[in-house]
């Protein structure tokens, strides 16, 4: 290895850093550090001028390592790595030091100490940079097909989108019919139409599409592999079918909670909103005069703290429908808070009020009480806004219960190695920035399996997931950041601890084929599966496993630099 020649670039970031940290002092300090061949200050290192200054210095001073002390690697690392690459330096010979978010911005009242801290952070970065190695990114082919799990409106939209782009799609639906939860509804809120009308055109397009292979009724039994290269096995009516795909979209939907509240299941005239819709569809509702609906039943409570978002609108829809069927009926909706966000929803709520539906606010500390022995006779409720107790006659009590995760979510989560978050719903990679992707590359999520969503949202998410999934399919090649694990087979003793802690099954014990080590049992990393967490490197008892970019030596050198040791 050539003697390290490290270039250090300290950014003023206008006054963001320079206004607090004494940048020239840090530059002088950096020059005194071991292996530093050049140090300079930039007004904005990320500007065109700053970038060309890095490129120029790499050539001028024959630098073989670059350290930039500025903002956060989470936003700017790719830019500086590219600058290195442009100047002919391997991009992994770059190290980032954060002296803005982690220093100047949080120590604005203490310039002297902020400057001392910036010096130490630079010292640590330089110490690590000395041990950086050039790395090559791993590339692998993408098999140009997708699997969509779930034939509801989200899954069908995703499947159609990808198929229309020309990709082969395997759509796996566990029920014998496409359409999902939508088929169980009586009509759809705001447009008041039969869901079959809406879903029929989509089902037709899916079922007749030459690029879509329908597996129905079928469940996914096994999935292994990585982005671009998944091996799938499904149980299709008792028969096992296997195929290969490059990407996976999870759109398995949700189910409606059956509550153990308000004597549901005990008294015949207590229904959920979904039960009510079924009776309306079957034309089996019968006569009614006094309808009471209760919202937030089993939702927004300590054991299920989330808002299910679609139930308020469902209650408003059915309450208005009750008035439509029997204008003489008295219809009450008992609510905690009303979720009628957006333009159409608020208007829909106003229309229901105009049609004579009464809305009464209750609080969870004082919930409604069901009166009656054989059946519900009345509902007693403390009206929070009027400040008085009311007794409402009732011959039909309808409970709005939340959507809850499907029973098979956990099994699927384990099979695909994708996480489940609050309430048993699937958890996306980033709540704001990556809403339809999992952290696991090549797997995407859409619809109510992620969070309760209405039809419009489910379709939009289906399209979004499909468009994200189409990127690797179209590129045909994926690159993996070179922070994956490596094993030194000479040091490895084959204990298997690394394989045990790997969450991605990326490490296997194998007989070595390397000359001189033939037959020795050693760990082998499948780079395509490795996500670069470094758990294996921390677990290895003798340092045979290392994480590129975060080696034991690199981390130790930072610790030693901070504690003033060599």
């Amino acid at each position: 290895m050539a003697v390290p020649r490290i270039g250090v670039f300290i950014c003023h970031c206008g006054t963001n850093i320079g206004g607090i940290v004494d940048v020239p002092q840090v530059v002088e300090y950096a020059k005194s550090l071991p292996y530093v061949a050049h140090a300079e200050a930039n007004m904005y290192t990320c500007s065109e001028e700053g970038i060309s200054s890095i490129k120029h210095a790499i050539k001028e001073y024959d630098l073989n390592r670059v350290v930039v002390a500025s903002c956060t690697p989470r936003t700017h690392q790719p830019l500086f790595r590219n600058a290195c690459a442009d100047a002919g330096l391997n991009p992994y010979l770059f190290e980032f030091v954060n002296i803005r978010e982690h220093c100047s911005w949080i120590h604005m009242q203490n310039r002297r100490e902020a400057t001392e801290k910036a010096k130490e952070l630079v010292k640590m970065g330089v110490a690590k940079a000395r041990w950086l190695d050039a790395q090559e990114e791993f590339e692998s082919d993408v098999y140009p097909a997708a699997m969509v799990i779930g034939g509801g409106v989200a899954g069908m939209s995703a499947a159609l989108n990808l198929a229309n782009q020309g990709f082969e799609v395997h759509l796996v639906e566990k029920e014998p019919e496409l359409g999902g939860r939508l088929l169980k509804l009586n009509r759809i809120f705001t447009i008041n139409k039969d869901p079959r009308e809406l879903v029929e055109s989509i089902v037709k397009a899916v079922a007749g599409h030459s690029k879509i292979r329908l597996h129905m009724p079928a469940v996914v039994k096994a999935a292994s592999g990585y982005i671009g290269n998944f091996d799938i096995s499904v149980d299709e009516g008792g028969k096992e079918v296997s195929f290969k795909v490059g990407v996976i979209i999870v759109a398995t939907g949700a189910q409606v909670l059956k509550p153990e509240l308000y004597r549901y299941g005990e008294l015949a005239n207590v229904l959920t909103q979904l039960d009510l819709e079924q009776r309306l569809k079957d034309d089996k509702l019968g006569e009614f005069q006094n309808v009471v609906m209760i919202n937030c039943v089993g939702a927004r409570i300590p054991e299920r703290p989330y808002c299910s978002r679609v139930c308020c609108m469902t209650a408003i829809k059915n309450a208005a429908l009750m008035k439509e069927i029997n204008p003489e009926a008295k219809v009450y909706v008992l609510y905690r808070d009303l979720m009628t966000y957006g333009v159409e929803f608020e208007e829909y709520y106003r229309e229901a009020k105009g049609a004579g539906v009464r809305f009464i606010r209750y609080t969870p500390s004082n919930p409604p009480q069901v009166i009656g022995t054989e059946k519900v006779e009345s509902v007693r409720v403390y009206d929070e806004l009027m400040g008085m107790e009311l007794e409402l006659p009732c011959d039909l009590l309808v409970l709005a219960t939340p959507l809850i995760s499907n029973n098979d979510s956990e099994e699927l989560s384990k099979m695909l190695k994708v996480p489940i978050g609050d309430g048993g719903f699937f958890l996306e990679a980033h709540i704001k920035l990556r809403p339809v992707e999992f952290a696991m590359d090549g797997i995407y999520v859409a619809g109510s399996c992620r969070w309760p969503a209405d039809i419009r949202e489910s379709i939009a998410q289906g399209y979004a997931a499909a468009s994200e999934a189409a990127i690797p399919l179209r590129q045909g090649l994926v690159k993996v950041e070179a922070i994956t694990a490596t094993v030194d087979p000479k040091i490895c003793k084959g204990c298997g601890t690394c394989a045990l802690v790997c969450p991605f099954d990326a490490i296997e014990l194998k007989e070595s084929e390397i000359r001189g080590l033939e037959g020795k049992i050693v760990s082998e990393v499948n780079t395509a599966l490795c996500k670069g967490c470094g758990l294996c490197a921390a677990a290895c008892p003798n340092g045979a496993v290392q994480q590129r970019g975060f080696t034991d030596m690199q981390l130790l050198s930072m610790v030693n630099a901070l504690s003033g040791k060599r």
Partner: protein
Amino acid sequence: MQDNKEVKTEFKPKILAFCCNWCAYAGADLAGVSRFQMPTDVRVIRVMCSGRVPPELIIRALANGLDGVMILGCHPGECHYSEGNYLTRRRAHVLKRLLSYIGIEPDRFQLGWVSAAEGAKFAAVVKETTDKITALGPNRWVDKK
């Protein structure tokens, strides 16, 4: 330990924090963007997962004379890699006992959970840990040996 010879001046501890790239490091970024002001004694090393930090490295840091070491990872159940923070939690448990066995105050090592959305919590953890370590005083372990 030349740093510790003059104890007459106010004691400023030297604290190291290993932060997971996906949660605590981003939380620290958010604290910065939010301009939450905090003590200057903590230095962050970024790792991809809290589970990357071997216990040996923490012992090394404390044996070197650093006054405190933190690992800040994702809340249980929210690990970017599914289960790395569970490994961290188990290791931390054993490590605390080991530290006390070899004569280092176990409180010099702290484990915490800070999400990417918890800038205020990051600032609070930094303040709390700095106070705790300051109260413990300089790390004298090296001198004792």
